């Protein structure tokens, strides 16, 4: 008994101590909150986002870098920027377009004169409608280009120019198994990017949807197996692919069904008025699996080097149908089960939902209500409609979660609306209902929810991609950053803005959030690897094999980099020589990256462990030019240098 009471005494003492400890901890937290003016919901937001040093985010967001021409990789929920991937624009840190021959070849593939892009919609590669973490595709609205990024090393491998048009918006989107990457024209021009006067707009100008064939084994787009379909010269806008029940179909929004063309110096109305007059525009419905067969058949002609199904053929073969969609449409998003197609018009407060099963029936029974002036059949609106839900002003894009809720961005309201889908997700009164709205700051464009555009969406978070920041951050002059806001969307709780992340880069458009575990990137390159080809490089050099080879006026230098020396560290050439320095990083340690810069020669490249790069230049300035490592690699980094002597 004595012992027992003794133990009880000790235990209660311990409990008291514990209470004092936690109490003082709580009061410390209260003090901090008071000092910083934080409310209880602020503290909740902090707890939901704070990620201690060394802990990794469970999600990664690939956000377009807009007209900075890059992709941003951001961790969620911490909203930490982890990487930028240069695509269309040079980046001196990564040696992208700043002297490396490898990156120059890729950039030149998209046009020798082009050194920036307006990157809009990143699309992760998919298998069965779910992100597989292997590739990322992006488009350049400014020049109608698409690019392939390999997610083994998070770097760009290919840039291609569309031969048929010069400006796109509906790119890039992938078919559920990434057979094709979709790109659609926006500000249309005559086919093949040729000349025709503006007065011939209706007759000679055309819209196009391109199906870029992706060769997964090669990690590249195959131009010869790609094809396009000619469309009327409406402004095709954004795209989504059917999945599951609607696999094989493609949906494209369009504006300017008025077929307006500009000339506001000669009494023509301002374009933004002229292209927005109609109350209804056309949702394009395309049977792409059928189109693929037509493209493979012998009859398809090539235009500007690409197989093209003409508009006439598309109508004849029943590849293309229209459905009316309300005012100034911008978003088209297919529900995870593939059965609902959600469209929203910027100037209509509803989201309009079509049902794929009804759509298929309407096509089968030919329930049409006329044709457009190019002869494309228009399906009866009522025969395909599932629901219209009033969500607020300026609805744009919609994403989904695993519980059958939809999240729609509202541009004019600066808000996100949460609403419920119909069967099988929600039945009876619970279906098609507006449930919650949260204010965002300000002018939301796209939103991105966890795997929210896939066949198996996640849950918990959406990110509001806001165009304006106005008062959210300290004044940094007239050019303000954009604002990414993390919003919690857990279960039936009210949505809450958790975090503001300034984006001082460019106007980002779309983003995709992927579970980090789906990605399997390399930590270092296999030794002697070319990042351009992702194969062993023919100019790789090992330690002890470094050499300088002169042939006529060409000097090939086979150089290795390893902490803390460049070998060779002296290169003698003559003015006018063509110098090619083949650089091999023979490092194997994680993060032991070197840079290679030559003074006054406008050269800097990045050499991650194992990577091989070539810099090529004409030694057109005589003198003595140091070269050195630009990444702080080691204690003797400053000593990692050499000289180029140009006689």
């Amino acid at each position, binding site marked *: 008994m004595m012992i027992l009471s003794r133990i009880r005494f000790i235990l209660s003492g311990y409990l008291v101590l514990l209470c004092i400890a936690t109490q003082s901890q709580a009061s410390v937290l209260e003090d901090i909150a008071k000092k910083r003016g934080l409310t209880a919901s602020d503290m909740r937001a902090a707890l939901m986002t704070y990620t201690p040093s060394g802990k990794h985010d469970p999600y990664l967001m690939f956000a377009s870098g807009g007209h900075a021409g890059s992709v941003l990789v951001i961790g969620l929920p911490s909203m930490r920027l982890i990487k930028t991937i240069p695509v269309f624009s040079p980046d001196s840190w990564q040696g992208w377009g700043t002297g490396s021959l490898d990156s120059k070849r890729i950039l030149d593939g998209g046009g020798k004169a082009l050194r920036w892009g307006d990157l809009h919609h990143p699309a992760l590669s998919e298998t069965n409608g779910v992100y597989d973490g292997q590739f990322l595709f992006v488009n350049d609205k400014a020049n109608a280009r698409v690019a392939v990024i390999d997610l083994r090393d998070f770097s760009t491998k290919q840039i291609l120019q569309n031969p048929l048009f010069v400006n796109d918006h509906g790119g890039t989107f992938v078919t559920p198994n990434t057979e094709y990457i979709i790109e659609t024209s926006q500000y249309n021009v005559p086919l093949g990017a040729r000349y025709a006067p503006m007065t011939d707009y209706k007759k000679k100008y055309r819209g196009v949807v391109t199906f870029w064939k992706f060769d997964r084994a090669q990690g590249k787009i195959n131009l010869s197996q790609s094809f396009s379909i000619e469309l009327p010269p409406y402004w095709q806008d954004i795209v989504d692919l059917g999945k599951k029940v609607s696999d094989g179909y493609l949906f494209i929004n369009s504006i300017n069904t008025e077929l307006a063309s500009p000339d506001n110096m000669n009494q023509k109305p301002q374009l933004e008025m002229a292209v927005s007059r109609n109350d209804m525009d056309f949702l394009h419905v395309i049977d792409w699996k059928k189109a693929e067969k037509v493209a493979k058949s012998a009859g398809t002609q090539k235009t500007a080097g690409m197989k093209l199904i003409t508009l006439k053929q598309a109508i004849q073969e029943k590849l293309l149908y229209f459905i009316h969609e309300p005012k100034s449409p911008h978003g088209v998003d297919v529900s995870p089960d593939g059965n609902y197609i959600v469209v929203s018009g910027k100037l209509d407060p509803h989201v309009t939902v079509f049902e794929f099963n009804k759509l298929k029936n309407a096509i089968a029974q030919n329930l049409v209500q006329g044709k457009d002036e190019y002869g494309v059949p228009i399906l009866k609106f009522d025969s395909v409609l599932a629901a219209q839900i009033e969500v607020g002003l300026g609805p744009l894009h919609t994403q989904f979660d695993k519980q059958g809720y939809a999240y729609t961005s509202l541009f004019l309201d600066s808000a996100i609306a949460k609403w419920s889908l119909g069967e099988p997700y929600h039945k009876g009164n619970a279906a098609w209902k507006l449930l919650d709205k949260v204010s965002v700051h300000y002018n939301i464009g796209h939103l991105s929810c966890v795997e929210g555009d896939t066949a198996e969406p996640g849950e918990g978070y959406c990110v509001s991609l806001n165009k304006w920041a106005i008062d959210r951050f300290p004044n940094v002059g007239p050019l303000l950053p954009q604002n990414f806001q993390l919003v919690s969307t857990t279960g039936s709780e009210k949505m809450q803005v958790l975090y503001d992340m300034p984006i001082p880069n460019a106007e980002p458009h779309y983003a995709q959030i992927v579970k980090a575990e789906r990605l399997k990137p390399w930590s270092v390159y296999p030794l002697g690897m070319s990042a351009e080809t992702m194969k062993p490089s023919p100019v790789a050099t090992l330690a002890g094999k470094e050499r300088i080879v002169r042939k006529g006026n060409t000097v090939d230098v086979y150089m290795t980099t390893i902490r803390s020396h460049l070998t060779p560290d002296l290169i003698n050439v003559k003015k006018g020589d063509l110098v090619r320095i083949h650089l091999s990083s023979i490092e194997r340690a994680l993060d032991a990256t070197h840079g290679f810069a030559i003074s006054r020669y406008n050269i800097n490249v990045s050499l991650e462990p194992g990577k091989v790069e070539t810099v090529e230049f004409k030694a057109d300035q005589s003198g003595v030019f140091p070269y050195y490592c630009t990444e702080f690699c080691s*204690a003797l980094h400053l*000593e990692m240098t050499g000289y180029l002597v140009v006689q």
Partner: protein
Amino acid sequence: MTFQMLKSYPSFYALLFLASLILAGSYFFPYWVMHLKAPQYPMGLHMKVYLDHVEGDVDEVNLLNHYIGMEKLQNAAQWERKVAALAVGLLILGGLIVLSFSKKIYFIFYLPPILFLIGFIGDFTFWMYYFGHYLSPEAPVHIKPFMPRLLGAGKIGQFHTQAMFGVGFWLGFLATGIYMLAINIKKKLLTQAST
């Protein structure tokens, strides 16, 4: 060695084969391991020394060592590594043949496996000494010649090291023990047979 002999000394042969098997197996495991830890290596660097080669973060360790002028690890014990397989093979074969046919157990029979392990430790210590004492004077970082720790914790610069015998060594140790046991059994059987 005949079937008759196998039959007359079953436990002796079982143990002898077991010892041979374990010793042969030890060849495929590291005899010595070293873990290095430093602030910029949160996952540590790891080296495993086998009888005939070195595995692990050898290149990274070489790279670090070049700052203090130490030779590349591959340069150590080149001759020993070449004959290692032969030595283990001879030890096993020799043991099997001599012990099977010998009608008497001599004291010298106990020595080879013990000498093998002592030889390993001795040779290893010599190379540790050599690497710690013959540092290039051209190296950017001058440190006093030192004797790296054969076993236990040590510290060089920002590196904390932890060295220990590996699985291979302990297998060799176990094989030696079983070998001793086998000899003793045969010795006992021989004595019984002669009385």
